[in-house]
C-alpha cells in the first residue's frame, strides 16, 4: 500500500514532555512500518484546544488526539480523576496496565473513538498566594481556580474551598490581582504557565490524578492494514514506557528550578482530607455507575 500520513493533534507546548513523546512515537511508528505509516505532529493547540481536538478526531478531520477533555468520547473515563484514588505514579501505572485499563480502553468505540492509551497529565496539587495548606482548615473558604471538570469542582467544594471558573488564559492576571487565591494545577502546568510568579505556596497533596487520554478515530484505526495496526499498538506501548521513565527526572528538575525561583513547597498529610471526600464517590457512583467506581477504587487500593 501507499505511504499514509496521520495527523496528530495535542495542546501541550512544543518540546514539552508530551510533545517529545509524540516525536518518539512518530519515529517509532515510521521505523516499525518501514515509513509506510507517517505521523505528523501538531503541538501547541495549533489545530484547536483539547475540546476541539476530541471533536475533530471523532469526526475525522484529525486522526489522533491527546487531551484531558473526554465528554465527547465517554464521560465515564473521568473516573480516573476521583480524589485520592491513587497513592503514587507506580500505583497509577500498574492499575492502568491491568484489567481496569483494558476496560477503560474499550470505552468510546460506539462514539467513533479508539482509545490508544493514557499518558500522565499527572497529580494535581494546591498552589496559592496566601499561605501553605496543611490542614482542611487552611483551604476552607479559599478561592481556587478550577478547570470546568465537574469532579474536580465537587471535590474542592467538599473540601471546603470556593472553586472559581476563570478561563485558562486569564488565570495569571487573576492570581496577580487576587481575584482568586490560588489554583490546583499539575506541577508542569504550574511551571509552564509561570503561575509561580504570582502564587508561591505549593502544597503537595497529589489530591487528583488526571490523564492525557490518547485516542484515534476508530474508522481510521480499523481501516489500517493488520500489520500497521499492530505496529501502531506496539509504538503506543513503547512510547508509554518511555514517557513514564522520563517523569521522575522531569519532576526532580522541576523541584530544583521552582525552589530556585522562590517557590515554597510543603507536603500535605492527606488523611484528614481523604476522610471528607466520600460524598464525591457517592455522587459519581450514581452518575458513572456504582460498579465501575467500586471496581476502579478496589483495583487502586489492592495495588497500594
Amino acid at each position, binding site marked *: 500500500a501507499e505511504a499514509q500520513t496521520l495527523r496528530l493533534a495535542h495542546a501541550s507546548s512544543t518540546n514539552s514532555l508530551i510533545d517529545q513523546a509524540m516525536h518518539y512515537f512518530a519515529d517509532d511508528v515510521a521505523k516499525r512500518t518501514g515509513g509506510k505509516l507517517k505521523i505528523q505532529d*501538531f503541538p501547541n*493547540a495549533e489545530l484547536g484546544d483539547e475540546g476541539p481536538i476530541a471533536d*475533530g478526531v471523532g469526526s475525522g478531520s484529525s486522526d489522533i488526539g491527546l487531551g484531558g477533555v473526554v465528554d465527547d468520547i465517554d464521560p465515564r473515563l473521568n473516573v480516573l480523576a476521583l480524589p485520592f484514588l491513587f497513592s503514587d505514579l507506580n500505583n497509577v501505572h500498574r492499575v492502568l496496565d491491568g484489567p481496569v485499563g483494558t476496560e477503560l480502553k474499550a470505552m468510546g468505540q460506539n462514539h467513533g473513538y479508539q482509545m490508544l492509551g493514557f499518558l500522565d497529565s499527572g497529580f494535581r496539587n494546591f498552589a496559592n498566594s496566601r499561605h501553605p495548606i496543611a490542614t482542611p482548615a487552611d483551604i476552607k473558604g479559599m478561592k481556587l481556580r478550577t478547570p470546568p471538570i465537574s469532579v474536580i469542582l465537587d471535590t474542592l467544594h467538599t473540601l471546603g474551598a470556593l472553586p472559581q471558573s*476563570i478561563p485558562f*488564559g486569564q488565570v495569571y492576571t487573576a492570581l496577580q490581582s487576587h481575584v482568586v487565591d490560588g489554583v490546583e494545577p499539575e506541577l508542569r502546568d504550574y511551571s509552564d504557565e509561570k503561575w509561580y*510568579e504570582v502564587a508561591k505556596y505549593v502544597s503537595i497533596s497529589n489530591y487528583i490524578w488526571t490523564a492525557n487520554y490518547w485516542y484515534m478515530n476508530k474508522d481510521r484505526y480499523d481501516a489500517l492494514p493488520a500489520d500497521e495496526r499492530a505496529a501502531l499498538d506496539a509504538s503506543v506501548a513503547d512510547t508509554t514506557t518511555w514517557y513514564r521513565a522520563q517523569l521522575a527526572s522531569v519532576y526532580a528538575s522541576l523541584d530544583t528550578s521552582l525552589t530556585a525561583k522562590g517557590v515554597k513547597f510543603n507536603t500535605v498529610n492527606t488523611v484528614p482530607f481523604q476522610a471528607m471526600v466520600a460524598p464525591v464517590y457517592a455522587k459519581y457512583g450514581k452518575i458513572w455507575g456504582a460498579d465501575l467506581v467500586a471496581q476502579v477504587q478496589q483495583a487502586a487500593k489492592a495495588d497500594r
Partner: protein
Amino acid sequence: MITGLLIGSFILLLLLGIPVVWAMAAAVILTTTFGGIGLPIAWLSQQVLHGADSITLSAIPLFLLAGGVMNKGGLTHRIVGVAEDVFGRVPGGLGLVNVATALVYGGISGSATADTGAVAAIMIPAMEKRGYPRDFSAAVTAASGTLGMIVPPSVILILYGVITNTSIGGLFVAGILPGLLVCAAFMLVAYLVGARQGFQRSERRPTIVSFSRDTLRALPALLMPLLVIGAIVGGIATATEAAALALVYALLVGFLVYRELSWRDLPGIALEALSTTGAIMMIMAVATPFAWILTIEQVPMMAAGWITGLHTGPYETIALVLLVLKVVGFWIDLGPALVILGPILTPIAQAAGFGPYQVGLLFIVTLGIGLFTPPIGTNIFVVCNVARIDMWSVSRRLVPFWIAAILCVVVLVAIPAITQWLPGVFGL
C-alpha cells in the same frame, strides 16, 4: 496549490465586493471542496463554533453596550467636554484624546479588540459631533486600539511569556515604555494630520471657572475608568467581568445621576451592540478554519524555516523575522500566529543578539500593526462597523499610522534599553 487556491479565491472575492466574512467562508468552502484535502463535512461548523467560543472576548459586546449607554446617558459628552477644555485648541485635539482614551482602556482589558470596541463606541460619535471626518476618527481608533495589548495587563503578552518561556511579570513591566512610545507616536500623527487638514478647533478659550464647572459635572463619568481599573487591581473582577461592571456603572449614572437615559433607549443600544458583535466575532470564527488549512499546509513553518537558512547579520535577521511575522499575521489572527511562529522565530531573533523582552515587545508591536492592516485586521472591522464606513476609506486614513508604527518598531530594534531597562530595574 491548496494555499494558492485559498488565498487567491479569498482575494478575488474580496475585490468583487463580497463582505470579508463571506469571502473568507467561501474561500474555505471552495478550498475544501476542490482542493482535495478530504475533510469530513462536519469540520466547517465545528471550526466556526470553536472559533467563536472564547469567553474572554465577551468583553466586546459588554464594552459596546457600556459605550452605547454612555453616549445616550450623557456621560460621553461630558467627558468630551472636559477633554475639549484641555485639548480643544490643539489641532486634531480630539484625535489626541482618542489615543489617550485607548491607553486608559488598554489598562483595563487584555484584548485589543475589546478595547477598540470600547473606544470606538464612545469616541467615534463624539468626534463626529465636533466635525471630524468619520474615516479619520475610525482610523485613529483602529490604530490606538493596539495600545491595549502593549501596556499591561495583556492577554497576548501572557501568551508570549508562556510559549517562549519568558517572565510574564517582566514582559508586563517591559511593555510600559513601548506603550508610551507608540501612544506618543500616534498622538503626533493625530496632531500633524489635524494641523494639515485644519480640523475644526474649539472656539471658546476655557477659563478656570468653566473648566472646573465642566470637570465637576463630568466627575461621575470620569470616575468610571477609575472604578473599573480599581475593580481589577483590587481583585474584585477579571477584565471581562470588569466590562460588565462598567456597563452597570454607566446605567446607574445615566439613569440616576444625569437622568438622560430612558428605558426606551435600551433596545436600540442592545441591537447596535448585537449586530456589531456578530459582524466582528463571525470574522474571527470563520478565520479559524482558514488558519487551520494554512497550518495543515505548514505555511507558517515553511516561512520561518526560510529565514533560518539565510544566515544574515542581526539587523537583517530581525527584519526578516518581523517580516515573516507580518506576512503570516496578515492571514492568521494574532493568537494563532504567535503560537505557531513564536517557538520558531524567538530563538532566531535572540541568537541574533536581541534581548528577551526586546524580542517579545517587537513581536507584539509588529503583530499589533496587523490588527489595523487590511484585508484581515480585526480593529478595522470594529471601526468600520461602529462608524458605518467601508474599509477602503479607513485604510487610506491609516497610512500615516502605519508609518508611525513601523518607525516605533525601528526605534525598538535600535534602542534595546526601552524594553530591557525597566525590567532590569525591577530585577526581572
